[in-house]
């Protein structure tokens, strides 16, 4: 009872996000001296369970029909039942977790907070550190009610240590009536199965200054191909309809942590910077020497990308091939 519980969805397997979440939870459980349980939702939860069991005290597999595929109302009902005695529930920052965490807190009479980059217990209260004001400041939020439901920027956390013995794996006992007030009728993958942007090593990204869709699919894509990079964009470019919404990086969008983030015609508004704060190196091409992006760069050039990118590609070809 009063355990730390993490909640995982099957879809991504035991990826970097799941590993980070497990690591954060494990360290927290150790700090407060409580058991760590994991709930895995979705078809295939059983297969994932054995992997997760290496790191936690107990794994609860919830792959009943009501929870086979994610649907907010049903999943929330199930999760509320399974976590009602928890002290802390931790989730990752995928959209499903973001969506149900506050509602879960409400159901359980607790408090939620999200996008945490650090979580700890202090004097019996859960405190979470997170970016606020579009990434311009950092706040520590103290939760007042129990359980604490916290979703984390899990990729930023170190993975868990394997335990000496594996945890128990049990199947969830659920009073699961599907809630049909809302029903998923279609799911569409738009990123053609490529690697997740959050895991990309090198990213080539464009902003409002690109001016249209063609340069993304031509100039920038060719450069990305040379570098073995993935493509991304700012909210402005997505809102203009030049690129798919899944390319959006920022406070609301993907949070990425590449070795190299190349920002082309991106001014560097703080909401965008909030999504790349963990990039190891940022480089920029921009016609405006006073663009804020340059204050966060390792190196940059002031100029028109239309002139510079083809020239850069020319110089890179012999090296990158």
């Amino acid at each position: 009872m009063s355990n730390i519980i993490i909640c995982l969805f099957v879809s991504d397997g035991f990826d970097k996000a799941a590993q980070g979440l497990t690591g954060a939870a494990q360290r927290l459980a150790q700090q407060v001296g409580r058991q760590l349980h994991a709930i895995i939702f979705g078809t295939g939860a059983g297969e994932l369970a054995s992997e997760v069991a290496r790191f936690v005290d107990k794994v609860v597999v919830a792959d009943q029909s009501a929870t086979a595929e994610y649907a907010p109302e049903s999943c929330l009902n199930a999760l509320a039942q399974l976590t009602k005695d928890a002290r802390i529930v931790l989730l990752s920052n995928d959209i499903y977790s973001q969506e149900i965490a506050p509602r879960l807190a409400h159901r359980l009479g607790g408090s939620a907070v999200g996008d945490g980059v650090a979580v700890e217990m202090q004097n019996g209260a859960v405190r979470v550190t997170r970016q606020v004001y579009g990434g311009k400041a950092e706040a520590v939020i103290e939760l007042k009610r129990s359980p604490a439901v916290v979703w984390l920027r899990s990729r930023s956390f170190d993975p868990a240590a394997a335990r000496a013995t594996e945890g128990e794996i049990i199947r969830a006992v659920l009073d699961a009536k599907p809630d049909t007030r809302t029903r998923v009728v279609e799911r569409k993958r738009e990123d053609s199965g490529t690697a997740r942007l959050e895991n990309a090593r090198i990213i080539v990204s464009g902003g409002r200054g690109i001016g249209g869709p063609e340069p993304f699919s031509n100039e920038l894509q060719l450069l990305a191909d040379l570098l073995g990079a993935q493509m991304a964009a700012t909210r402005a470019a997505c809102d203009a309809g030049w690129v798919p919404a899944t390319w959006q990086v920022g406070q609301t969008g993907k949070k990425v942590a590449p070795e190299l983030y190349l920002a082309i015609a991106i001014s560097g508004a703080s909401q965008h910077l909030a999504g790349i704060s963990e990039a190891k190196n940022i480089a920029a091409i921009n016609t405006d020497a006073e663009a804020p992006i340059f204050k966060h760069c390792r190196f940059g050039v002031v100029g028109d990308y239309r002139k510079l990118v083809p020239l850069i590609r020319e110089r890179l070809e012999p090296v990158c091939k």
Partner: protein
Amino acid sequence: MAASSHSIQRHVGGGFLIANSACDEVFTREDLSSAQQMFGRIVEDFMRTEVLPRSEQLYAKDHTATRDMLQKAGKLDLLSLDVPQDYGGMGLDKVSSAHVGEKIGAAPSFGVPVMAHTGIGTLPIVYFGNEQQKSRYLPLLASGEKLGAYALTEPGSGSDALSIRTKAKLSPDGKYYILNGQKMWITNGGFADVFTIFAKVDGEKFTAFIVEREMGVVSGREEPKLGLDGSSTTALFLENVCVPVENVLGEVGQGHKIAFNILNFGRLKLGTVNMGGARQALNDALTYAIERQQFGRAIAGFGMIQQKLGEMTIRCYVGEAMAYRAVGDIDRALETAAGHDSAAVLKAIESFAAECSMNKVWTSEALAYVVDEALQIHGGYGYSKDYPAERAYRDARLSRIYEGTNEINRVLIPIRLLKAPAVAGAATDVNVAANGPCAAPPSDPLFAREYELLACAKKFVLLALGCAQTIYGKQLSTEQEILGHIADAAMETYALESALLRTSKMVAAKGEGNCSAPIDIVRVYASDVADRVRHSGKQIIAALSAAGDSVLPEVVRQIADYPVFNTVAARRRISDVVVKAGRYPF
């Protein structure tokens, strides 16, 4: 007593010289209502989403893009603010229209085409059109479906507007006027659809015509200009252009009324438009000065830069005070103008012709100072096209030339002041000037010395006006230099009073402790005004030496007595405030 015959009419043109205003009687930028501020934000949002992303097209004079932007602005009602509601316009007050102008002034390459369309391109029809003309053209101009331009200037005729040579001859069947001639420097010339063109019927009668492009107007090439890269400026070639007689605007031979009145209107708006450009340049310079580091610190902390930032802030603050005050006074006069009848409206605006001219000259020169220092603050980068300073510098230059050169306006200011009956009377009655209402400045513990200085300045301007009038009589208009000096003194007086009133109003609302920068601004400005008016005064006295007048030198001596004030420290304090805010905070 003499004062009672000049019963306080301070809110008419020229009234500032013979009476004192209370701060709650003048409009200041802080008085903009929530709705008026929202109009300003519509413009900002529009510029950010529709104009700035397409700057390159604008600068390349891609007329299709410019027309598209103007029409999108029209959909938001931004082109119809001054068109009466009866003809599809918003019929807004002039303060709202001026505030919108301030926002547009931040990007002159777009602002100038807009102002040319909405001002000189549309207003001649608003004020001088008959019913058919207004119904036919105004809705199309208000929406931006048709774009307007104004064609008065010719290769050989600029300031001397009445010397134009474009001719209009009535056709034998009496249905058309045939126009022949050439116009020069026409803003929007490359794409406008509807032109107000001035020509002389039978080579003599100065007349305005509404001419549609299809009637045969041919645009010349785009003139290669120093700045305003996005603004279309062309010659117009009129070769046997047939204009239906129904398109005569106003009456044949009465076109000068249109020309002069429309200029007043344009000048009225220029105050806030120029200050919009100044504000933008100051903000760009602040950004640079705060981020640029030399010798281990931001250059914003060095004295030379602080002095510039301080003075630039002063010019913006004082210019806004003058511009919004004048527009507010005009709105008040228009409220009482009988039923917004065109003739009454024009008369009200004409009565403030001196204020309009003073605003035009003062703000255009303040803008010149601000963009010049903004470029200087950028150092070598100010000279580079990668930074916004050089464009602002080039764009600003025209404002001292168009809408009547500053030289012409300086000559006009004293002439117009003398036309205001109350002023004329006070100027030539030495007793009134010396002992009239302005002899007793309002008591204000915070600005006692400044109000004393102001009273002396008003007295001086009145006396100088009277003296000059007495000595030269009808030849006064030929003494341009003296008129120029008197104009300078009058402008400084109006500016100082406007700044004092703006600050007093702010202090009353927010408390002295929260207005330290505005208070410093007023004191520095007063100190400089004392020096400048003293300088003008000495020139005037010397030039009028035949007067043998003893009152003028005495007043100038009183002005010079304004106590020494540590402007170095004050400009530093002002600079610190704006640097801390990161932008011009008023």
